């Protein structure tokens, strides 16, 4: 590692940051691009390989303003595939750190905290996969009070904090409690048979998304969430209370979570809810959590059909 005074190039600078040191092992094969979900689902121009080239070519401004720098969620699908075993997300994180130091800011919309609601419990800070929230103290009415605050450059918008926040004090457009709750109430129509909470990353191809849309709304209501880390067991209960007969939560296969830990977190929450259903003697089959992998194309149809079958059996047993 170079002594800071010896730093000559942008690449050297990246390499001084832990994680950035593997930069020059890249021989630009592009396997990372082929594995990247952002490239496939969001932005065809998204390109970790190109970012690494920008760094090596000393094009720091281009690297700092590249979406690749900011959108990488460290899912590490590319890391597993890289023949050179480059921990690419760490290299990107090193570039991001330099970008933040140089005054660049994330183009993503972060969650924000409503201090009127925040109790300063610190749960958001503990559960975030990116350690974006933290607590700070300020004086309110002459005494010190704690509140959460979010580092906008770290927040990836997965919503894990939103679901964990006990008081609904943290959120952003697209993942707020109000936006999900409204989809679980059916004042004017009959409730659907099944509500499916779907992590938008768990279905990797358009054909799978088409399957979701093939069910009529009065049979299967699909609620899109950015990650199953966003799932709140309260929402599953609210859906059932409104007359829905089953709740299916669909996340990514272990090891493929786009937001590092969301699918595991969802597993924990849904397991706890399932255990409590058992204790209270409610039909556990009414709630189901599944984890769909890259290789599981078409599985969502089987899962939904199986769930529809299950809840009709449960219905018969109850009535």
């Amino acid at each position, binding site marked *: 590692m170079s002594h800071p005074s010896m730093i000559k190039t942008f690449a050297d600078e990246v390499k001084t940051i832990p994680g950035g040191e593997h930069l020059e092992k890249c021989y630009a094969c592009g396997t990372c691009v082929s594995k990247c979900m952002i490239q496939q689902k969001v932005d065809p121009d998204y390109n970790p390989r190109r970012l690494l080239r920008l760094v090596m070519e000393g094009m720091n401004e281009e690297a700092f303003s590249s979406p690749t720098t900011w959108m990488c969620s460290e899912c590490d699908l590319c890391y597993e595939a890289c023949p050179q075993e480059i921990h690419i997300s760490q290299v990107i994180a090193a570039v991001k750190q330099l970008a933040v130091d140089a005054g660049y800011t994330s183009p993503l919309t972060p969650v924000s905290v409503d201090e009127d609601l925040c*109790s300063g419990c610190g749960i958001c*800070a*503990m559960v975030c996969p990116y350690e974006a929230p933290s607590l700070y103290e300020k004086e309110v009415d002459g005494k010190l009070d*704690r509140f959460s605050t979010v580092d906008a450059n770290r927040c990836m918008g997965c919503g*894990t904090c939103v679901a964990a926040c*006990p*008081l609904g004090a943290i959120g952003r457009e697209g993942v707020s409690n109000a936006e999900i709750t409204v989809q679980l109430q059916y004042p004017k129509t009959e409730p659907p048979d099944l509500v499916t909470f779907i992590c938008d990353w768990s279905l990797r191809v358009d054909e799978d998304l088409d399957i979701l849309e093939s069910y009529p709304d009065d049979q299967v209501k699909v609620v899109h969430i950015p990650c199953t880390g966003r799932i709140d067991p309260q929402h599953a*209960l*609210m859906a059932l209370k409104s007359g829905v007969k089953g709740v299916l939560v669909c996340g990514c296969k272990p090891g493929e979570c786009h937001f590092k830990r969301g699918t595991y977190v969802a597993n924990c929450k849904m397991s706890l809810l399932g255990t409590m259903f058992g204790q*209270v003697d409610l039909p556990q089959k009414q709630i189901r959590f599944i984890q769909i992998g890259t290789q599981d194309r078409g599985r969502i149809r089987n899962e939904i059909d199986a769930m529809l079958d299950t809840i009709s059996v449960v219905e018969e047993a109850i009535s």
Partner: protein
Amino acid sequence: MTAKPKLAFYWAASCGGCEISVTELGMDLVAVSEKADIVFWPAAMDFKYDDVRAMQDQEIDICFFNGAIRNSENEEIAHLLRKKSKVMVAFGSCAHLGGIPGLANMYDIESLCQRVFDTSPSLDDSRGTRPQTITQMPEGEIRIPELYDHVKHLSDIADVDYFMPGCPPVVDQIAKVFEAALSGNLPAKGSVIGADVKSVCDVCPREKGEPGFRITEFKRPHEVQLDPNKCFLTQGVICAGPVTRAGCGIPCLNGNMPCRGCYGPAEGVVDQGAKLASYIGALIDTDDPEKINEILDSIVDPAGTFYRFGLAHSIMTKLKYN
């Protein structure tokens, strides 16, 4: 001279702790009884149901009703007191949320009776006794109240004006509520009174967890030497503080015990137990997926812990008994 306001106290399915908390007012209770007439208080004074039945409708100014609705007597008297009272306060966790008796909603009546009448360790032998609403005796027919199939909270069966949480409500808050009630300063109908808005964490002075802290094993309070200065969650102990309304003055935390949730859901919480599962689940260490189930298994009795005071009030109970 205007007549003194009339107060009533009643206990339905409860342990009597709420009554004791009222008597903890001590000399202040004497002051209350100077400003108001206590017209019904079975636990402390000699009144009968017929005394209440003889009253005019809305003759009682404020009724403080504690206890859950477990049987037909609880419900009958709740309706009677509702009719005879201008203002009805659900007083304490049981009236507010179903409280500890509400945990019975995990079981059916037959298994509860088996435990109480057949397998309880304090019984020598079982005679297979079961409570009967009507029993014929040589002297005539004996009737006892009917045990309901599940525990309800007061607002399930009656129109409640105010909810005063706590198991029991702490004496400072009781004093404040009596003061507000006797001076006509109660808030809008439907409000939670004698408590704060935010959660217990807002007033808990303990050091919170660092960003990225995760729980690798859950322990119960008696299984660990607890650091009195650190958040219970960071010590692997389940604490209901984050979802529970503040206002109790944190006696449990000061006694180095985690919040158990008796003050009920804070503003913004829909279902106290499900929300507890939401943050407890998210706090579990997921770095080693192989260990997740082990960590989950270290949570003893999730429903009883997460819904300790609120099961009868929960969506779970609504789903089960519809």
